[in-house]
């Protein structure tokens, strides 16, 4: 009974939340846009009260012209892509594994989900000091045990290391979504395929994977949105050096290290554009997958 009356009442009820959300997003967005067109160097005494000097597109040109811009885009895409690949592939495998009836299933499932509850800063610290440390880390012990020289992961293989840490954090999410999707697969379909002469791998390829298609696109979409802005993991481990300076990190450095708010804001606008390109691209794929 969605009458006119109840509908307008519903709008009224939702208004505070909508207004709050809009303000939450619009205010910072407008300020970023505004700053990006001004010279704003707090160290040199610029401030909003005294009025900011309008410089047009100068910040945009400088941000893109800087020698760190393209490498940072590259690093961003590499990390996002790497994490997506690992979480989706391992997520599918883990989901299939967890779907099998086995002893202690409940506990195993909780253990698998656990990393998701660890704060990014904490997990990055744990990985850096307990696992990847070239002297005291777990990996260095393993390497030495086999008589190899320990690798100093975060400097010699910095990008893969970060991908590893972030994948560890996001694997539970992917696994969880994919597991629920696998559980919704009609077992008669698999039995039918078995009777039709499809061996295990063919059943996976022709039945399970297409069934998971939708869940996989959702995992990719949601993860991409969050992965584009990863920060803590880089800040804690490499501090942006050794080729791990992502776009987000570059903006942070421009604003905090170089105290150039105008330039950082211009970078922020580029990041928004990049995120939207990726989002539109993904929405297309997801849309195609969802309206089946």
């Amino acid at each position: 009974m969605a009458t006119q009356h109840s509908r307008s009442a519903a709008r009224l009820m939702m208004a505070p939340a909508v207004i709050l959300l809009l303000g939450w997003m619009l205010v910072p967005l407008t300020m970023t846009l505004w700053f990006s067109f001004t010279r704003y160097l707090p160290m040199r005494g610029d401030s909003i009260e005294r009025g900011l000097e309008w410089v047009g597109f100068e910040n945009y040109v400088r941000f893109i012209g800087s020698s760190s811009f393209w490498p940072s885009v590259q690093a961003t895409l590499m990390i996002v892509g790497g994490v997506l690949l690992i979480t989706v592939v391992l997520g599918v495998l883990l989901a299939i594994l967890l779907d099998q009836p086995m002893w202690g299933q409940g506990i195993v499932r909780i253990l698998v989900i656990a990393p998701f509850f660890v704060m990014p800063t904490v997990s990055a610290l744990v990985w850096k000091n307990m696992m990847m440390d070239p002297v005291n880390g777990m990996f260095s012990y393993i390497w030495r045990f086999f008589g190899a020289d320990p690798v100093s992961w975060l400097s010699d293989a910095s990008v893969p290391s970060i991908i590893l840490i972030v994948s560890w954090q996001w694997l539970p999410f992917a696994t969880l979504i994919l597991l629920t999707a696998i559980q919704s697969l009609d077992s008669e379909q698999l039995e039918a395929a078995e009777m039709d002469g499809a061996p295990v791998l063919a059943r996976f390829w022709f039945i399970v994977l297409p069934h998971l298609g939708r869940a996989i696109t959702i995992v990719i979409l949601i993860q991409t949105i969050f992965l584009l802005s990863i920060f803590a993991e880089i800040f804690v481990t490499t501090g942006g050096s050794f080729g791990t300076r992502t776009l987000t990190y570059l903006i942070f450095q421009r604003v905090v290290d170089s105290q150039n708010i105008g330039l950082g804001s211009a970078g922020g606008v580029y990041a928004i554009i990049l995120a939207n390109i990726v989002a539109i691209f993904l929405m297309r794929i997801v849309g195609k997958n969802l309206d089946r």
Partner: protein
Amino acid sequence: MGRITLDKVRKAFGDVEVIPPLDLTIEDGEFVVFVGPSGCGKSTLLRLIAGLEDVSGGEIRIDGQDATMVPPAKRGLAMVFQSYALYPHMSVRKNIAFPLRMAGLDAAEQERRVKAAADVLNLTDYLDRRPGQLSGGQRQRVAIGRAIVREPAAFLFDEPLSNLDAALRVGMRLEISELHKRLKTTMIYVTHDQVEAMTMADKIVVLRAGHIEQVGSPLELYRAPRNLFVAGFIGSPKMNLIGGAIAKQHDAATIGIRPEHISVSPEAGDWKGRVGVSEHLGSDTFFHVTCEGIGEPVTVRVGGEVDLSYGQTVWLTPDANQLHRFDDKGLRIA
């Protein structure tokens, strides 16, 4: 060829024995129907034959070859599931071609066989649709199409019509019977609907709690049910089962008489009773008559339209030649 022999086949899930050792032979080209109440193990038996469940004991032979340990794909049987189990992301054409593709047939041969199957099943116009865009009956036909392209030794159907509405069910029943006449392939068909069993089967296997109660042609089961369970299960409306003094008169613990073998007269007869609810089907009329000395109301079937009013006194006379007698263990007395 498709002669299937079950030799002391047994199935237990954990401690629960669902199917106690069971012997059954299904001849080549036969249409066999497994029928029985819900939970009696029909599906389980079918899945044992298909190889989707492992037997707990005994042997399954297909055409004389021991198939007990042969994986489902290698048994040469095709199954039609109750939920159809079509592959939702594939077109009808790809669904039907799937077993051929898995068998590694070349594209031209696949296409030829899919066309042939689609012709038989009236699916030619729907080949490029997804299963989600089909009606229940069409999905059912796709599932059958996917089974026939493989040219299996036998077809296994698990309640294939239970998701369809009544009218469609009658239509599909005829189509499946016709398919059987044309292909002459062994078919094993599971249902709990005794009308389907009676109309389609060459041979009916009545199951109860995993036991075979009786095996025989529909008319054998109708004419000479071996025990009370089969007597009550086969035939619609149900046979009237009468105990007590009336049964004693016939030297039996229970007597059975089918509704169609009782005549009604307003003047005279063996049993006096009062007419209760009557059901008018047009072609037949069913009366439920409460008789003196008989606990349950007796169902009577009369051809055509007969008007007896509620509460009217009538006399019923069973046809003595059609009377079934059962002893105190529920077994038929010859």
